[in-house]
């Protein structure tokens, strides 16, 4: 295992200290493992809290700041944080208007946030929850754990965060978060496995001419293994899955994210975006806004995820609203 770390057990603590040192706009509670905005929540503003296992940076800590999250709770690598962290985060940022938990749909995240919501209620904090489940690679049914939450998290955090900044109440912010999630679909492909610091070995062996189709962001294998193909064909596969699940019409406006999984050079992400733009242009689907970069990663995994969010004028105007976080910044 080759990592720039001191010890597998110390990764989270060291990285949190680094985040604290790097970003004066953030306030890091090392004891409770909470990354919060340095400025107090404006009284009456709904506070947004998200979190999940570490290893997906900049998600979530990199999205804490004006117009996006008020706090993030990073767990150990690929491990949901514990309820105490989430409670501490909620207490740190509640501005009296309630707290929105933005939770990616994984059993661990769901259960821990659920317990945290109960604890918060006991402390008199009103909590609403938005569950993110955008990954169309996963079969969805009442018998399964449901779809994973992946790229759409960025869209939900940005857009719900902007609405909260504008003074909307908790129900409105939660409703908008759910709307964005409902409008979003993702699909990911991996060229290599990632290696967690604790395990020290790649999660799976992948021959030099193969790729995993339909992977998540936790190093698990995907739905199937296939021959490595040109970017154009990989994009076609991913977009087919996305559009089959949520057909879009001519003229529909979208926000598209081409997201690197951690070990993929930006050069390749632009190659991928070019193919995405070509396919959507062909169908007269408009990419009104886009993100090309590594926003929701899976440690050092090489690969890409695509997220397409159907966007109306409200969503676009909230997208364009000012944001000032380590990983997304405009208008400030």
């Amino acid at each position: 295992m080759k990592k720039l770390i001191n010890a597998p057990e110390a990764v989270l603590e060291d990285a949190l200290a680094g985040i604290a040192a790097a970003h004066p706009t953030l306030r890091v509670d090392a004891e409770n493992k909470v990354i919060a905005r340095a400025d107090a929540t404006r009284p009456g503003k709904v506070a947004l809290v998200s979190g999940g296992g570490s290893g997906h940076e900049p998600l979530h800590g990199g999205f804490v700041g004006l117009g996006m999250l008020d706090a993030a709770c990073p767990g150990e690598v690929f491990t949901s944080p514990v309820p105490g962290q989430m409670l501490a985060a909620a207490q740190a940022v509640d501005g009296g208007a309630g707290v929105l938990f933005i939770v990616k749909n994984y059993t661990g995240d769901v259960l821990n946030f659920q317990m945290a919501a109960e604890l918060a209620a006991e402390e008199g904090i009103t909590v609403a929850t938005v569950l993110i489940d955008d990954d169309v690679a996963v079969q969805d049914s009442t018998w399964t754990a449901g779809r994973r939450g992946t790229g759409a998290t960025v869209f939900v955090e940005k857009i719900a965060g902007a609405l909260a900044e504008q003074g909307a109440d908790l129900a409105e912010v939660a409703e908008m978060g759910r709307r964005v999630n409902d409008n979003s679909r993702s699909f990911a492909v991996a060229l290599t496995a990632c290696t967690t610091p604790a395990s020290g070995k790649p999660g799976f062996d992948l021959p030099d001419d193969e790729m995993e189709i339909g992977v998540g962001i936790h190093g698990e294998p995907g739905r199937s293994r296939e021959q490595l193909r040109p970017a154009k064909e990989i994009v076609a596969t991913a977009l087919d899955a996305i559009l089959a699940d949520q057909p879009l019409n001519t003229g529909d406006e979208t926000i598209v994210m081409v997201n690197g999984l951690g070990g993929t050079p930006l050069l390749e992400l632009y190659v991928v975006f070019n193919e995405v733009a070509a396919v959507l242009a062909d169908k007269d689907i408009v990419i009104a806004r886009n993100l090309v970069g590594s926003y929701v990663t899976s440690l050092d995994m090489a690969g890409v995820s695509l997220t397409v969010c159907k966007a109306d004028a409200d969503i676009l105007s909230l997208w364009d609203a000012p944001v000032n976080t380590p990983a997304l910044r405009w208008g400030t």
Partner: protein
Amino acid sequence: MDIDLARTWVQAIAAAVDKHKDHLTQLDSAIGDADHGVNMHRGFSAATTALTDYTPPTVGAVLVKTGTTLISSVGGASGPLYGSAFRAIGKALDTPTADTQQFAAALAAGLASVQQLGAAAPGDKTMIDAYAPALAAFQQQANSGSDFATAARAAADAAEDGMRATIPLQARKGRASYLGARSIGHQDPGATSTALIFRALAETVTAR
């Protein structure tokens, strides 16, 4: 089962988890996210620490404390699930000692709590597939008047059988479910740690 034994059980789990940490993580690497060993290790290390300076009034208090510590230190799916299980088991044992029948009832409360929280059924390829047969075996021995150690050994055997029986299953809950049919052929990490927990119980009470 008494207070001392309960504490020794938790310590024995911690030792077993320490020994099998890498194995649990490797199982989780195949069909999950490669953290189950580390998660369990973090949780049971914290639990034994929490118990060190604690003078529990009841058997149950030991296990409630253990469960609470797991919830506050593990994270992931296994933290709330095992944490609730231990809390439920503990809440059902509000006495300085517990006999085999009482313990069977407590284990049942623990399983109910896991199922209520995680909504998994037997056959979904989760810890339930080790827990449910272990509980059934323990209950059966209790009903037929066996002593605690015999019941615990039967439970451990059944848990290990259940653990192995997860191999051919297709996961319907937890991360392994994302793999669909590709989860077949792998042993569930949570069922494996459950088997460790029951084996630790059997060994603890047998050693006494």
